[in-house]
């Protein structure tokens, strides 16, 4: 779960990190009120993706009128597929310098990594590419957390030695987001050092591990409803499916992430364009298949669906029956190709054929079939 900026800042504030005074505004009037309260403000689009500045999602307002106009322009805007639901109006800071500080999971090290750089306010991936030496790194022990001497070392490495103490204090607070909130990313960019010497979170990113949602029901209750991005992904999540929207027109269902990704590859190789990634996990119960089909069919761009199920233990005839039932319940008319294997796979294929569904023996064969059928526009 990727929190919005103002949500992430609320969490950081609860960990003891200083954030600028700010107010959420859902309409231009509220933005004007925010200005009245805070004075000059930045009006910022709240979307769970980066790059909103370049997309025009951040505007400075030096009057109530400007605040109102900024909110008018930003709310409802589309930024990388996310419709902006509200803006965050934040008091302008007296910036002396900007620092980058963030934790993320370093997959290769199987550990969390702290990244610290004097080049704050910039895209850290770009900094990493252009001047990797400008980023100091620390892999804290996951039970101990970062130790004082480690934080001092990394501050000196980053050329921020004179700020070693306030930085260590801040980083230890930021680190708490990992054990306390299962953060996969906890980033402050820029971390603003004001001319008064205070250290304040200028922006904040916080991604909470979905696998740990059961430990953080409170977060989901407080913030979850606002995090709607892609409508199909939202719907799929509600139905307990692992689903990612893509750009194409062929719906894909598979069991297992690897098989599912492999199926995307095959469809693309056969000249088609997948509309999604949808992993229904082990087994292949009728109910789950129906849920997956229902979500895929919500998308009007979809012209056909390929189901690729490897039945390790599941029986082929059962999978076939399930698919038929799901299709019938949903009154689906688009081309449907099903490739499955497992015990009784031939019986399964027979059932499919009898019900007007194209069976495939191999994934590659099935991929070619669905591409062919969707090109022909069957069912439309």
């Amino acid at each position: 779960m990727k929190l919005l900026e103002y949500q992430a800042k609320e969490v950081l504030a609860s960990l003891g990190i200083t954030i600028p005074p700010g107010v959420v505004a859902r309409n231009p009037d509220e933005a004007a009120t925010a200005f009245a309260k805070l004075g000059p403000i930045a009006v910022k689009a709240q979307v769970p993706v980066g790059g909103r500045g370049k997309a025009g999602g951040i505007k400075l307002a030096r009057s109530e009128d400007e605040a109102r106009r900024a909110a008018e322009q930003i709310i409802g805007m589309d930024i990388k597929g996310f419709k902006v639901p509200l803006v965050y109006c934040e008091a302008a800071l007296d910036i002396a310098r900007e620092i980058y500080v963030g934790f993320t999971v370093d997959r290769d090290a199987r550990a969390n990594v702290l990244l610290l750089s004097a080049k704050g306010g910039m895209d850290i991936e770009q900094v990493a590419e252009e001047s990797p030496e400008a980023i100091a790194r620390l892999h804290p022990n996951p039970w101990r957390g970062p130790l004082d001497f480690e934080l001092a070392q990394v501050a000196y490495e980053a050329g921020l030695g004179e700020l070693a103490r306030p930085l260590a204090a801040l980083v230890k607070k930021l680190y708490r987001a990992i054990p306390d909130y299962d953060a996969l990313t906890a980033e402050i960019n820029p971390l603003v050092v004001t001319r008064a010497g205070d250290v304040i979170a200028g922006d904040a990113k916080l991604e909470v591990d979905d696998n740990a949602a059961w430990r953080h029901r409170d977060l989901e209750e407080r913030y979850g409803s606002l995090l709607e991005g892609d409508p199909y992904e939202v719907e799929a999540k509600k139905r307990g499916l692992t689903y990612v929207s893509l750009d194409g027109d062929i719906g894909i269902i598979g069991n297992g992430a690897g098989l599912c990704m492999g199926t995307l590859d095959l469809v693309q190789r056969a000249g088609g364009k997948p509309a999604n990634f949808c992993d229904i996990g082990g087994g292949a119960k009728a109910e789950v298949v129906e849920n997956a089909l229902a979500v895929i069919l919500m998308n009007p761009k979809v012209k056909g669906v390929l189901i690729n199920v490897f039945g390790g233990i599941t029986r082929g005839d059962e999978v076939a029956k399930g698919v038929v039932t799901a299709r019938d319940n949903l009154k689906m008319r688009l081309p449907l190709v099903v490739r499955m294997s497992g015990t009784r796979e031939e019986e399964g294929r027979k059932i499919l054929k009898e019900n007007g569904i194209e069976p495939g023996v191999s994934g590659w064969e099935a991929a070619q079939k669905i591409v062919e059928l969707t090109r022909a526009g069957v069912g439309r």
Partner: protein
Amino acid sequence: MSILLDASTRVIVQGITGREGGFHTEQMQELGTKVVAGTSPGRGGTAHLGVPVFNTVADAVKATGANASGIFVPAPFAADAIMEAAAAGITLIVCITEGIPIQDMIRVKDFLRGYPGARLIGANCPGLITPGQAKIGIIPQRITRPGQVGLVSRSGTLTYEVASALSAAGMGQSTIVGIGGDPVLGLTFRDVVELFEKDPETTHLVLIGEIGGSDEEHAAELLARGSRLKAVAFISGRTAPEGKRMGHAGAIISGNRGTARSKEEAFQKAGVAVAETTDDIVGMLR
């Protein structure tokens, strides 16, 4: 004739009284796996599926001399179950459970440093099987047959695909290891490849990788130093769009790292044939 696991391995099942644990224990027993005990807190002193049940792994190890464990407990308890197994002296820990929080696994990985003798497979993996001898996990024995191909994979269902195809073509397997697709996991490709290299009965190697991370690249580096195994690699997700997380499997690419291309190039550079689809693997392996 195998790595990690054979008919003599003494296996316990953590969570044996659960639905999944029970079902797969029976499958494991059917193949001949020496399941010596199960654990289930509060059920100590009873029996289930013909084996004694203990409250703790320590009790089970003490009573049965078990040296391997299959973990089928729900995600909130799985990290603890892995640590319990390691602390009790289990040296092969296979965690099938999916959906374990990443931070739990990061802590587990550090915990395991204190138990250098313990090997973890998974989590979120189908486990491993030495065809005709034993299995821990959920790989269907029906699609395997004994032989000389070592198979190591990050994906469950793709493993089954390939094992099926190999068996159908008469190419049996020495051991099949599903290492799991989570971002933070136990044994890596490289670890498993090293074991296959040392197993005289394994003559061929199939690696099934995925986008994300650099584990495939590291295995390729090892193979590049020279290998006696005839190897074929396959990477899934080559057409996945950048920056999208493909399922809990954690397959995600950022920048140039972890792309299918970088992995395929690493294998090619190591002299390992790279298959374009899983259907091609059998033919390329012959």
